[in-house]
């Protein structure tokens, strides 16, 4: 569609390019060392060995034990496994079958969390209830709200680390402390219901240290393709003693928590990508944060009637989300694409639903504001020059679209 030879990728929250180092680490495991990691022969054992070294890298980074790292097909599966796996195990457990199981999440989670929760609510009405926490206008979960809704039968609190649309970073450490306090109270009062804390940290590893002990997390989700690794591979970190059952039955792989032949090249890539994320984090945060400040200020000073969505203080370094009054997101996206610039929209008008982003509505934006939003996400290969080019094109595109929409009012 692009008429421009220039290519500017500003959609790193959708996916990232694979780092060359990651690709090189993966290559031998397609045609040379292709063994099934479960096989006992030397081909298999070589695969097993590299899977285990990836596991070690990730376990170390998340401050968990090796056997607490479950490789999956990505964040969607890890999140599904968390919710359905805990439900499956607890709903049939003799100790926990007297009361409904109570789950808590926020209204701005990724659809794989929200739809898994809705699925349980719909299919097992008598066994489960779910609370969807409101967020404030910056997208933050309120700790007092959370404390208020935790009940004796609450078994899972799942709150994302970084929101993928508006970049808000949730107070995970404080939530973890609250959960720990409640766990201690339950212990003293002989309430045997477990209370697990899960975070979908898919958007986080490039910018935030994910120490599950420090954060008091029982479960954590990450994937490879948001951190310069391959698509279709992820991790669910599960603290030992968590009562969870596999949802995909078969050969009993991954400590009986996730059956299926291991994606060896993918797992090698994920291990390498995570290692690089850890190594480059400090430098990345600094570089990307500077670009973010530069871009936000430049848009604000060059284009009138714009609004930054999300938080200024609690914001991941790589997310910039603006509403441009008098325009609709898809139109802006298409025109930027013609200039070779790739962005994303909060509007779901392109999918089957006509409703705009649930996240923007949850932070109190009107339908119109939500429809006029554009998400730019930066990454380690972004440059100031790319951002200058983008603002330049953006400015004339917004002018053009405002001319087309001039005169219409809701």
């Amino acid at each position, binding site marked *: 569609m692009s008429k421009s030879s220039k290519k500017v990728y500003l959609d790193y929250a959708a996916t990232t390019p694979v780092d060359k180092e990651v690709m090189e680490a993966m290559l031998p495991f397609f045609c040379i060392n292709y063994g099934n990691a479960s096989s006992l022969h030397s081909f298999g054992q070589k695969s097993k060995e590299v899977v285990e070294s990836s596991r070690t890298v990730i376990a170390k980074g998340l401050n968990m034990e090796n056997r607490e790292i479950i490789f999956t097909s990505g964040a969607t599966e890890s999140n599904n496994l968390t919710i359905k796996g805990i439900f499956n195990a607890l709903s049939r457990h003799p100790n926990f079958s007297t009361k409904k199981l109570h789950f808590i999440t926020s209204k701005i989670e990724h659809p794989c969390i929200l739809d898994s929760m809705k699925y349980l609510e719909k299919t097992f009405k008598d066994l489960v209830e779910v609370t969807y926490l409101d967020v404030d206008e910056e997208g933050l979960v309120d700790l007092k709200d959370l404390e208020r809704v935790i009940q004796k039968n609450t078994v899972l609190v799942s709150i994302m680390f970084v929101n993928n649309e508006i970049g808000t970073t949730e107070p995970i450490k404080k939530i973890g402390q609250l959960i720990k306090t409640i766990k201690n109270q339950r212990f003293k009062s002989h309430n045997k219901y477990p209370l697990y804390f899960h975070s979908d940290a898919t958007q986080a590893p490039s910018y935030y240290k994910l120490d599950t002990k420090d954060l008091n997390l029982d479960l954590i989700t990450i994937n490879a393709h948001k951190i310069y690794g391959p698509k279709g591979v992820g991790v669910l970190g599960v603290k030992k003693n968590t009562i969870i059952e596999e949802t995909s039955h078969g050969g009993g792989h991954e400590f009986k928590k996730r059956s299926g032949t291991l994606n060896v090249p993918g797992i090698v890539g994920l291990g390498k990508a995570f290692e690089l994320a850890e190594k480059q984090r400090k430098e990345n945060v600094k570089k990307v944060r500077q670009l973010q400040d530069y871009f936000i200020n430049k848009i604000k000073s060059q284009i009138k009637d714009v609004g930054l969505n999300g938080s200024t203080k609690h914001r991941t370094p790589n997310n910039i989300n603006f509403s441009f009054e008098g325009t*609709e997101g*898809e139109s802006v996206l298409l025109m930027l694409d013609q200039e070779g610039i790739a962005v994303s929209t909060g*509007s779901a008008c392109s999918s089957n639903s006509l409703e*705009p982003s649930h996240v923007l509505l949850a932070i109190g934006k009107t*339908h*119109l504001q939500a*429809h006029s939003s554009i998400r730019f996400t930066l990454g380690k290969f972004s440059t100031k020059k790319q951002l200058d080019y983008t603002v330049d094109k953006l400015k004339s595109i917004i002018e053009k679209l405002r001319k087309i929409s001039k*005169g*219409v009012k809701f």
Partner: protein
Amino acid sequence: MYSKKVMDHFTNPRNMGEIKNPDGEGEVGNPVCGDLMKIYIKVESKDKQEMIKDIKFQTLGCGSAIATSSMVTELAKGKNLKEAQEISRDDVANELEGLPPAKMHCSNLATDALKKAIKDYYSKK
């Protein structure tokens, strides 16, 4: 996702703008899906027929909302009011070489805006 024709009308919309003192105008929209359109017409009587002499649109919306607005004005221009009223959403979509299913409602909006403008003309007569 979009045909070449849609992209062409989106990028170079025909008859875009406003008519001062129009003979009829029609505004339709749906804030939930984020689209709003306004169509202005100038009518001329010739050989006992009422023709659309000039037509312009203004649209806030997605790619197909802009393209369907542009296309409906192009189809209506020069037609008599009866013919113009009969332009259907499928006519608009077909002339654009198709629209994704989720976007068909946009061609509805465009023909609705035109019908409303014609109705407005009659009501003022």
